[in-house]
């Protein structure tokens, strides 16, 4: 029998998936660089108000002032500089909250899925209870309890979103635990903890990495939503959500105050998600 050649369509999909992966990673890398270098590359002080320069349009529109590339908000603050500084909050939340959520959720899921028994019973019941909360309301409630601030946002995200990891990892750990290689590891004398960490975890890891990427995107959105309802960090610090909230109220007078942070947020969320999807297509045998 002649060997069947891979069809053209497949390699095309592959190439498109690769492009998607690189574009997303590129945007996120750019964002990281911008966030790190914010004080040096931002053209203006993001907090400097100048009521005489309020609601300046972006540079290509009649009435723009040089130096204020993307215009100013109603208090005369430079939109571009605020977006650049806003990247710091967004990325901090994405990385820190995403990672901690991942650690907490994946550990609980792994323990529940592998140990089974009453541990699993308790954790699954907790997951059920968590799923019955509307997440946005829950996060707003938590911020009300914890008070505004970066730390509160991170805690709120961890408390709410650990179930995303726990659910998937638990199911996967269960499936893996039923496989022969786990049984033979146990027969060969590995302990429970050893089996879990050395045998099961490596097989679930690709899934966890993909979920982590997706979670970072979600964290960025949650921060924006909390800023939007004025519950994020202090109102002075520039955040994308806060800018969107201001822009929403003056959208008819100064659309640019809403549009530019929105585009940035949109692209960032899209990039995290597409990065996750791209990684999934490429490396993850479970979620694919």
């Amino acid at each position, binding site marked *: *029998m*002649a060997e*069947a*050649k891979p*069809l*053209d369509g497949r390699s095309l999909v592959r190439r498109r998936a690769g492009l998607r992966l690189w574009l997303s990673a590129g945007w996120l890398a750019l964002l990281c660089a911008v966030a790190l270098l914010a004080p040096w590359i931002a053209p203006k002080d993001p907090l400097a108000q100048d009521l005489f320069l309020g609601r300046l349009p972006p540079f290509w529109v009649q009435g723009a002032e040089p130096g204020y590339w993307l215009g100013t908000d109603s208090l005369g603050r430079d939109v571009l500089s605020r977006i650049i500084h806003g990247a710091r909050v967004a990325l901090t939340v994405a990385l820190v909250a995403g990672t901690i959520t991942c650690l907490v959720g994946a550990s609980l899921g792994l323990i529940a899925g592998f140990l089974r028994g009453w541990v699993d019973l308790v954790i699954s019941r907790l997951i059920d209870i968590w799923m019955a909360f509307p997440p946005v309301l829950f996060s707003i409630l938590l911020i009300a309890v914890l008070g505004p601030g970066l730390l509160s946002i991170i805690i709120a995200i961890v408390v709410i979103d650990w179930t995303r990891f726990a659910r998937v990892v638990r199911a996967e750990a269960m499936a893996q635990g039923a496989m022969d290689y786990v049984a033979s590891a146990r027969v060969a004398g590995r302990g429970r903890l050893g089996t879990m960490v050395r045998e099961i975890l490596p097989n679930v890891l690709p899934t966890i990495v993909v979920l982590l990427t997706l979670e970072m995107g979600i964290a960025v959105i949650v921060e924006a939503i909390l800023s939007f309802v004025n519950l994020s960090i202090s109102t002075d610090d520039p955040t994308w959500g806060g800018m969107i909230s201001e822009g929403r109220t003056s959208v008819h007078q100064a659309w640019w105050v809403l549009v530019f942070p929105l585009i940035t947020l949109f692209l960032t969320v899209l990039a995290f998600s597409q990065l996750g999807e791209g990684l999934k297509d490429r490396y993850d045998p479970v979620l694919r």
Partner: protein
Amino acid sequence: MSFLSIRNLSVRLKKGPSLLRRVSLDVAAGEVRGLVGESGAGKSMIGKAVLGILPPSIEVTGGEILLDGVDLLQLPPAQRRKRIGATCALIPQDPLTALNPSHRIGPQITDRLVDILGWTRPDAETRARELLAEVQIADPDRVLRSYPHELSGGMRQRILIASAFAAEPKLIVADEPTTALDVTVQKQILKLIAGMQARHNTALLFVTHDLGVVSKVCQKLSVLYAGMVVEDATVADFFAAPRHAYSAALLAATPKYTDPSAGLQPVPDAVIAAVQAEVAAFDKGLAHG
């Protein structure tokens, strides 16, 4: 004039290897032709090509499929479908997967009559009841109202046979209709198909890997190897003296119902090599001319 006449039909995987190599065969009205060969020889592919249900990854590269003198391959798709639906039918291999689990049995028998052939619903239902009686189903009314999962495999195959004969087709393709059934049921189903075929005088293209079945049901047969017809003969002639070395070897590898104790011969390597050389020579000939 044969009802079905396939001329030099070639089929291949898109941009891949050939699956059928210039296949020609005829089935006259009321005649039963067996298509035999190992799995992968392309016997099912012929049936699929006739019924227009080749998977999208497979393309016809040449030849004609004349149905009542009209080349199906030249017809626009919609017309081809109508024509096939009105004159041909399929008895599928696996009765467990060939009935739609979410429809009742009744509509699955009558749908073609009503939707394609324009019968009235009561007429079609009466017809369905008659057919079920003809395939010896005891309680037609109950069965017509049942869902497939409520019936046994043998029962479902009877229903599929009834459904195939519903529109009095001129040609039926039976694609290994007994392979998926219990041995005990196989004989009954075979007898049923043969009986129905004789009563309705339907041409039958019987795809099977079992020469024993061919000897019972068919009048003619085509032996396939690697998508090539290596022998086309009447059943009587074939079982008396197969002409091609490969068919002879295939026959020797088949258990004899008359003498089950006789030793079986696997197809010898030399015969395989010879027939493969034939295929290679054929492909080469194609490439050059």
